């Protein structure tokens, strides 16, 4: 699992052809697989880029067993 870096995340977004409502679920999945969790900064950035409210993304993330919002020791 890679340590979270904003740059690595930005590259992930670029490789996926940008962040849109359509690929939001896949993108969150890629972030989870890469860093082992979905950091707050990512949720904020994706909310700004896709127009989906931060609370909605957070609400969705926490309802899936395989998504984590904090790095677990």
């Amino acid at each position, binding site marked *: 699992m890679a340590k979270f870096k904003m740059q690595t995340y930005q590259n992930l977004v670029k490789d996926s052809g940008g962040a849109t409502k359509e690929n939001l679920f896949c993108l969150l*999945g890629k972030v989870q697989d890469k860093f082992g969790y979905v950091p707050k900064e990512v949720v904020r950035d994706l909310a700004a880029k896709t127009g989906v409210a931060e609370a909605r993304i957070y609400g969705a993330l926490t309802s899936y067993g*395989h998504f984590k919002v904090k790095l677990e020791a």
Partner: protein
Amino acid sequence: MKEKKVLTGRVGKYKPLDLEAYKALGGLQALARALAMGPESVIEEIKRAGLSGRGGAGFPTALKWASAAKVQSASGGPKYFICNADEGELGTFKDKVLLDGDPWAVLEGIVIAAYAIGAEQAYIYIKGEYEETAKLWDKLADEAKKAGLLGEGVLGSKFSVSLNVVRGRGPYIAGEEFALIASLEARRPMSRLKPPYPTEEGLFGKPTVVNNVETIANVPVILAGGAEEYRKLGVKDDPGTRLFSLSGDVKKPGVYEIEMGSGTLQELISELGQGTRNGRPIKAVQPGGGTSAFLGRDSLGCKLTAKAISKAGSSIGTAGVIVYQEGKSAVDIVKGLLKFYGAESCGRCAPCRIGVVRMKEIVDTLSRREGSADDLMQLRQIGKVSVAMATCGMGQAFPLPVLSALELFPKDFETLIQKVP
């Protein structure tokens, strides 16, 4: 009783990514034929073959396709096709065999289905636990693009389609079609009321068809050999074969492909499954996954068709046959099931959200020997309310094993009831 390998015939015969080997085994003929005959004729052929969904509900596939194809995108808006590979039902593991063993056939089916309904974007939603399968499909999608099966102009035709491989992220309910759609939209996986059906308003509000993997694997078989040839398999109102996932207390669990109506439940368990694990008699069987009603020993002579199994009092569902041998209390069995469904209820509607928790509490009370006859009545009532009132298939089905256990094994429950002194 013998297996009839129609869908699983190629499993293990070629390396999963080897397209040439798949072609040599007769692959891609169906797609070529479909592209030559046009979308309407493809749907007509599926209709004549009488294919019904293999994901649990058993809805006629051609009907679903036709209603999505009918919605002419007047606005020029997109349509979507989703292959549901989020196989979450308890005791069901048949789709994995096809996804790993004959992935090209599933892909061929996806392309044909997308072509028939006019979708340019297809998704395959793979259960998160099947990580190796998802990795294989990532590579498969790349290979297919290179070979001209996906992308602009499929096999030199005017039809274009792309495929997104999506990984599920855990929840059981995401296998339900509305919850799956919500999940792809990055929302909480929850079902909703219908209509509108997904074929009218599905993914991102556009017409969407969701089909199970096994359903899709049937499509190339039908188109390659023709509907009449397919009809020769199985019985009149239930043609074809089905993949039965046999598990529980049997000596040889596994996935067995069986021609519809060619044998009985008893034969499946005693011949292919080689009987119960300790040679004890069978106590009960769930023939259609964890949410199907129990069948007692007396009902095991029923034929393996959807009709015969529902006549016996259960349903064929996902064809996940779970066998329980004598020596287990029905109370313990339903306790385990309720624990699972309690954790997985999405919370969308009260009958399921509250009902499953209350039912579990009652069963827990009973197994602590603190229950009363009144509790049994409550258990029945709450279960019946959820069957009648819940929004989605899960809420309508999870009480069925409990209700049938109360019918079939009342003694198991009654012995735990405290006697009033």
